[in-house]
């Protein structure tokens, strides 16, 4: 052994440490990878050694290699080993490595649970700290569930260092285990007022993170935060709170009104820019939330804008950036106040910093109006020219298009100008956004009918000058615009001045160098042009021109027929053949123009991108229904699972095969035509009736009243600037005219109305140059307007949307690690659990007086503790008996981690029975009721049923009486309230854990000076797949009295069917000792195993809890009766099932059916399903509309299948199960669940 140690330390001498490794890597720059791989080999050797120091050193090096990108997950187990070292040095290395490379998929994480728990309760605060830090990086749902309670305890640790870490990590725990939020929230809230600023800041931090995602649940905290905001001087805390208010105000406008003043004060007083900025931001949020209600906050807006202007004018680029950012928020609701700073923003466009220029561009987007659009775009065009060949120029281009096209071209008064801008933009070389320009051209040409003539003319020019655009096709995206140009010229060719010329331009040989999809459009539209040319020359007999056109096509098309692009080839050869045929007809002097034009008749309407999704499913359409019945031989395999249920009526007739006579066919054709006429997806002559502009009248055929001041044709390439000039002139002219009218006083009402709804700028006064009809995108006629497509169903924060104001139900406890009776078999645990009760038994049995003294001591110690936070650790443990017991337990429980995790797999959270005892009484009466099991609330409970218990309880009763008599002053109140929770829970919709404590009104009796209350709750019954006859019942004991409770003994009267499992050697009626004591106000959980013979019937078991109540002066024996309700549901385990397996199961024929009908259920179907899933442990196999199949399995392997159907408030449930009585009971329980709602 000694030799081994020596050898180990010699080995160590030659180990590389982290510094050596780094140095080595730096010295092997040329063959780094090779060097590192040898290092990794060495590390693997080191990890094999027993010496923990060597291992830690190796893990430390691995952490470095991980940073360089090497996967070190293979060493995960070694990392766990190092984590569990007792030395802080190594532990820290282990946790660092774990935090860098562990994640939810790391399987060894489950081995760490007990180690982490041990570290969390370590007397050394840095062990705890390191564990918390590490855990914050790799916490998994399992870890969160298992450790939530421990961390919550740490939130009240004496050391602020631990408290603040524990508070922060709770956020991660909430994310992974949302059930912990409600139980932990009260304590978290407490920490907002922690004396230590670090802890307070952490609590603010966590609550802000929570509230940001689900603000409405945190509104009730607003007063508290308001207090903090006015009292705190910590800028970090202030910033967080102010940010939080920003999230809260939209929900509660009254809060906003209150905030304005203190925030304004802060804005005036603070010197910290970060705080100022956040204040301004929140004031903006407030103003936005108020903008609908109270408009008179112009002073605040002015203040904000003025402060932001100072920021923007600052030389610090960061402030400038943030100022612009905040400005853009104001812009959304108060554009006017921002627009007055247009100069400043345009100035920012010249900034050298790209981020700032982009921000300024964003602002411009919101600043445009009909009035200044042209001017702003002109400025941007100047910038485009300056910013040659950069990504910024591309950004500018997209912004120009964004600005112009926003809200359906709302600000464009002159579309000719816009088309010219687009055409000007095509001159940009090397831009990636050719397709963007193209789509704008198409969009405008299709939707603004009045502009088509102009657009076509411009596009024809573009096509003519195509060589300018196609300079370098390879990397030039701009040639995309030719796609649009060709299509527009073809589609609206009736507007073309000279179609022949355009056709010629489209068939130039150079076209063949364009990308394939553009060529295809060229070819197709050449055909359209051809049709136009033919029609133009229609009627002229022996038209030379028409024949020349055909010849031109026949000459040029073969080039495209040879194209490598299939699309081009196909279209070209098709059209070539067509033209050849037409030529033949022409030569025979046959009129062909009509027929050729008919090929391209009809108009295309734009369709909204979401239109397809919004098409409602037509009534009676069942896409899952068979069109033809499946072949008979495969019937047994393919049959739908639904069909197995008896009540399913055959929906679809097979009459489809029957022959239909001619009449019928004609009728159907008629119907179809009718349908097509109503169907927006069929292209038809009349365009949609939807409009954005208030075009006069119902007529939506373009009212082309082109202003005469705008020349229809601009020679050559258009110059958008000309339009700007013309526009200014036009507006002046209009103004003048209006003034004239005003003088004539003919405006009267109409004018007034106008003034009222258009602001001071009087946007509406600027009439568009064209009476334009913007065709909106089409949507299916009865499309739903709701836009719920944006929500992300995978958002982890969704689960945290939990109502926090509702009083905490007692069942919502964090899982506490305690002894489980079944674990008693393992010797380690046995020893432990015996040692605790033995201790307590001794006390309770003989040395009561001593006990009292001890208790007094204890309470003194507790007082001391409150005064002096820094006590010696051992003393602390003594003063917190609960904690001490717990930590001891965890040490012991650390031994078999795998077995426990296996059990947890099948943990099914449910609440079966909730009990509470109350009874109003004077002293004497209390004695009576306490021994008589609170008869008034359970009068039907015969006392005689507990013959086994009578002896012991009578004995206790006597004792109690004696004590009570001694201390007559003491008055007791007991409260017995039987609440069968499981079946009740159905009534509460929003309950997370399925439990609500329904407080029965306490009988008011002034004479009670001391109230004694203990609660026993069964909140969880776990079935166990491994052992089909065992059920684990978790019971929470809560001490609601002011006294200390100890020596608790738990006993249940066994029935024939169910038995409490007792340790070997114990008699059939012996009580089990609850392995903990309860100080006042504390709750803890114990688990008991029951063996169950038959699970087909629900059961109620009676039980008794005896305990000793210790107060300062007295110690009394008390007894509490309760009932355990084992519902059939509690034997079910949520088990997923695939639909094919489900179908097979149903087909097997082993299952017997039963059904249930529920009337008057008016909850949404998915709620209904969720409720069944939640309360009755089912899982949904398949859901089709208002029909769903569900599955669950009992612990003994019974299959339970449900088919749930709903129609107008009636729910029918067809069920199948291989055990009819189990099924019957489950259905009864389901019925009960829904009868409560």
């Amino acid at each position, binding site marked *: 052994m000694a030799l081994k140690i020596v050898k180990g330390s010699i080995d160590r001498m030659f180990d590389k*440490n982290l510094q050596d490794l*780094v*140095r080595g890597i730096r010295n092997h720059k040329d063959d780094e990878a090779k060097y590192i791989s040898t290092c990794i080999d060495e590390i693997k050797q080191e990890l094999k050694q027993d010496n923990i120091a060597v291992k830690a050193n190796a893990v430390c090096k691995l952490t470095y290699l991980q940073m360089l990108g090497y*996967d070190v997950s293979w060493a995960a187990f070694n990392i766990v080993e190092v984590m569990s070292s007792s030395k802080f040095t190594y532990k820290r290395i282990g946790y*660092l490595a774990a935090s860098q490379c562990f994640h939810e998929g790391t399987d060894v994480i489950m081995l760490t649970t007990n180690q982490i728990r041990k570290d969390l309760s370590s007397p050394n605060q840095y062990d705890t700290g390191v564990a*918390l830090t590490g855990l914050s990086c790799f916490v998994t749902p399992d870890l969160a569930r298992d450790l939530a309670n421990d961390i919550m305890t740490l939130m009240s640790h004496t050391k602020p260092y631990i408290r603040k870490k524990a508070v922060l990590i709770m956020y991660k725990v909430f994310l992974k285990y949302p059930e912990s939020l409600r139980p932990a929230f009260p304590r978290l809230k407490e920490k907002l007022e922690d004396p230590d600023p670090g802890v307070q800041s952490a609590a603010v931090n*966590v609550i802000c993170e929570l509230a940001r995602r689900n603000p409405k649940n945190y509104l009730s905290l607003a007063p508290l935060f308001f207090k903090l905001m006015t009292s705190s001087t910590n800028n*970090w805390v202030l910033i967080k709170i102010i940010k939080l208010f920003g999230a809260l105000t939209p929900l509660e406008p009254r809060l906003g009104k209150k905030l304005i003043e203190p925030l304004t004060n802060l804005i005036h007083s603070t010197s910290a820019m970060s705080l100022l*900025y956040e204040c301004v931001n929140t004031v903006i949020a407030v103003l936005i939330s108020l903008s609908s209600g109270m408009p008179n906050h112009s002073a605040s807006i002015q203040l904000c804008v003025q402060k932001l202007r100072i920021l923007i004018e600052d030389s610090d680029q960061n402030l400038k950036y943030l100022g612009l950012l905040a400005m853009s928020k104001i812009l959304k609701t108060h554009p006017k106040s921002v627009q007055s700073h247009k100069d400043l923003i345009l100035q920012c466009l010249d900034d050298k910093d790209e981020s700032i220029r982009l921000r300024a561009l964003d602002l411009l987007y919101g600043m445009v109006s009909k009035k200044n659009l042209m001017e702003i775009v002109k400025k941007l065009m100047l910038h485009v020219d300056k910013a040659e060949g950069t990504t910024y120029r591309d950004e500018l281009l997209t912004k120009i298009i964004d600005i112009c096209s926003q809200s359906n071209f709302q600000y464009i008064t002159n579309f000719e100008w816009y088309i010219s801008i687009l055409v000007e933009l095509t001159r940009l070389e090397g831009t990636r956004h050719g397709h963007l320009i193209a789509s704008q051209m198409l969009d405008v040409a299709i939707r603004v009918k009045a502009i088509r003539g102009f657009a076509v003319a411009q596009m024809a020019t573009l096509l003519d000058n195509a060589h300018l655009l196609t300079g370098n096709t390879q990397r030039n995206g701009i040639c995309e615009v030719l796609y649009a140009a060709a299509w527009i010229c073809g589609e609206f060719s009736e507007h073309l001045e000279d179609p022949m010329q355009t056709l010629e331009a489209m068939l130039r040989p150079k076209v063949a160098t364009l990308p394939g999809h553009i060529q295809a459009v060229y070819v197709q539209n050449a055909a359209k042009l051809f049709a136009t040319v033919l029609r133009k020359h229609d009627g002229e007999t022996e038209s030379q021109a028409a024949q020349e056109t055909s010849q031109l096509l026949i000459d040029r098309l073969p080039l495209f027929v040879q194209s490598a692009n299939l699309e081009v080839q196909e279209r070209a050869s098709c059209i070539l053949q067509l033209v050849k045929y037409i030529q033949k007809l022409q030569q025979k002097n046959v009129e062909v123009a009509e027929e050729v034009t008919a090929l391209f008749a009809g108009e295309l309407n734009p369709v909204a991108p979401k239109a397809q999704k919004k098409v409602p499913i037509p009534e009676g359409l069942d896409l899952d229904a068979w069109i033809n019945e499946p072949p008979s031989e495969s019937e047994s395999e393919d049959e739908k699972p639904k069909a197995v249920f008896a009540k399913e009526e055959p929906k679809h007739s097979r009459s489809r095969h029957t022959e239909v006579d001619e009449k019928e066919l004609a009728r159907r054709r008629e119907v179809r035509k009718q349908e097509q006429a109503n169907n927006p997806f069929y292209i038809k002559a009349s365009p949609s009736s939807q409009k954005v502009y208030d075009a006069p009248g119902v007529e939506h055929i373009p009212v082309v009243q082109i202003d005469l001041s705008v020349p229809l044709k601009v020679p050559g390439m258009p110059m958008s600037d000309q339009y700007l000039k013309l526009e200014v002139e036009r507006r002046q002219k209009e103004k003048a005219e209006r003034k004239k009218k005003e003088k004539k006083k003919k405006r009267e009402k109409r004018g007034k109305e106008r003034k009222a709804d258009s602001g001071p700028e009087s946007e509406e006064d600027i009439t568009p140059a064209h009476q334009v009809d913007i065709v909106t995108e089409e949507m299916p006629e009865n499309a739903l307007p709701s836009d719920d497509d944006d929500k992300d169903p995978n958002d982890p924060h969704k689960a945290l949307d939990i109502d926090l104001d509702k009083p905490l139900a007692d069942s919502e406890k964090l899982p506490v690690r305690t002894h489980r009776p079944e674990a008693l078999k393992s010797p380690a645990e046995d020893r432990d659990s015996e040692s605790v009760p033995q201790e307590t038994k001794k006390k309770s049995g003989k040395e009561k007086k001593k006990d009292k003294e001890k208790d007094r001591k204890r309470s003194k110690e507790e007082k001391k503790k409150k005064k002096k936070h820094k006590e010696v650790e051992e003393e602390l443990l003594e003063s917190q008996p609960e904690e001490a017991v717990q930590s001891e337990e965890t040490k012991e429980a650390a031994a078999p981690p795998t077995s426990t995790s296996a059990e947890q797999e099948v943990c099914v959270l449910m609440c079966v029975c909730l009990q509470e005892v109350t009874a109003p009484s004077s002293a004497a009466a209390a004695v009576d009721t306490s021994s008589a099991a609170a008869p008034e609330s359970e009068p039907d409970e015969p006392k005689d049923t507990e013959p086994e218990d009578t002896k012991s309880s009578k004995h206790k009763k006597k004792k109690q009486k004696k004590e009570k008599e001694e201390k007559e002053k003491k008055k007791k109140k007991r409260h017995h309230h039987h609440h069968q929770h499981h079946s009740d829970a159905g009534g509460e919709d929003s309950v997370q854990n399925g439990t609500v404590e329904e407080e029965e009104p306490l009988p008011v009796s002034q004479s009670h000076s001391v109230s004694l209350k203990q609660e026993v709750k069964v909140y969880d019954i776990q079935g166990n797949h491994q052992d089909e006859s065992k059920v684990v019942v978790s019971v929470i004991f809560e001490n609601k009295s002011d006294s200390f409770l100890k020596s608790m003994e738990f006993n249940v009267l066994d029935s024939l069917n169910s038995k409490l499992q007792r340790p070997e050697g114990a008699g059939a009626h012996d009580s089990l000792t609850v392995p903990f004591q309860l100080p006042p106000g504390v709750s803890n959980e114990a688990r008991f195993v029951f063996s169950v013979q038959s699970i087909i019937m629900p059961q109620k078991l009676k039980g008794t809890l005896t305990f000793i109540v210790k107060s300062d002066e007295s110690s009394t024996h008390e007894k509490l009766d309760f009932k355990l309700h084992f519902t059939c549901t509690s034997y079910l385990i949520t088990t997923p099932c695939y639909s094919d397996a489900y179908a097979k199961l149903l087909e097997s024929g082993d299952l017997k059916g039963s059904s249930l009908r529920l009337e008057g259920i008016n909850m949404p179907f998915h709620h209904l399903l969720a409720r069944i899933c939640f309360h009755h442990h089912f899982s949904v196999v398949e859901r089709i509309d208002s029909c769903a199949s569900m599955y669950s399995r009992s612990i003994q392997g019974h299959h339970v299948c449900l088919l749930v159907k709903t129609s107008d408030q009636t729910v029918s449930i067809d069920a199948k199960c291989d055990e009819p009585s189990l099924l019957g009971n489950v259905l009864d329980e389901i019925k009960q669940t829904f009868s409560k709602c």
Partner: protein
Amino acid sequence: MIKAILIFNNHGKPRLIRFYQYFAEDMQQQIIRETFHLVSKRDDNVCNFLEGGSLIGGSDYKLIYRHYATLYFVFCVDSSESELGILDLIQVFVETLDKCFENVCELDLIFHMDKVHYILQEVVMGGMVLETNMNEIVAQVELQNRMEKSEGGLSTAPARAVSAVKNMNLPEIPRNINIGDINIKVPSLSPF
């Protein structure tokens, strides 16, 4: 929330990476490369905020960075963090490093990545700001270091001797090179 903290030098070599959301190693390296690419092409006199970075975050996230001599300190944060606050935090972190390492320079970070991590752990925990008071951070770090020392540290005297021996054959180690205004000193051979 802070999603990631990256420290790399002017050549994009990572000196410390700390992700508060899981990414596989190759993804991490890709993020570092992308971030370096975004940050390194910016002038020193432009603002310290950067939007985008397709790999990490999305629209809600920002890169907030500071450039000190040879090192970039980049924090990737979401909108719940105050931009200027995070800039201050970076400053606090760097000043803390400076105190703990006495005139910090890149080499300190290179050779003592673990220590830098331990310091960072006292500033940011699980993606949330833990402490902003520099004195408190330094005090906690020193207490922990003292504890480590009392346990004898990771490597004890013999190992130190060995590493001294090993160093003899190495090509020269840079000594007191001045790059710009920062002072790069020789890493102390004794690790603690």
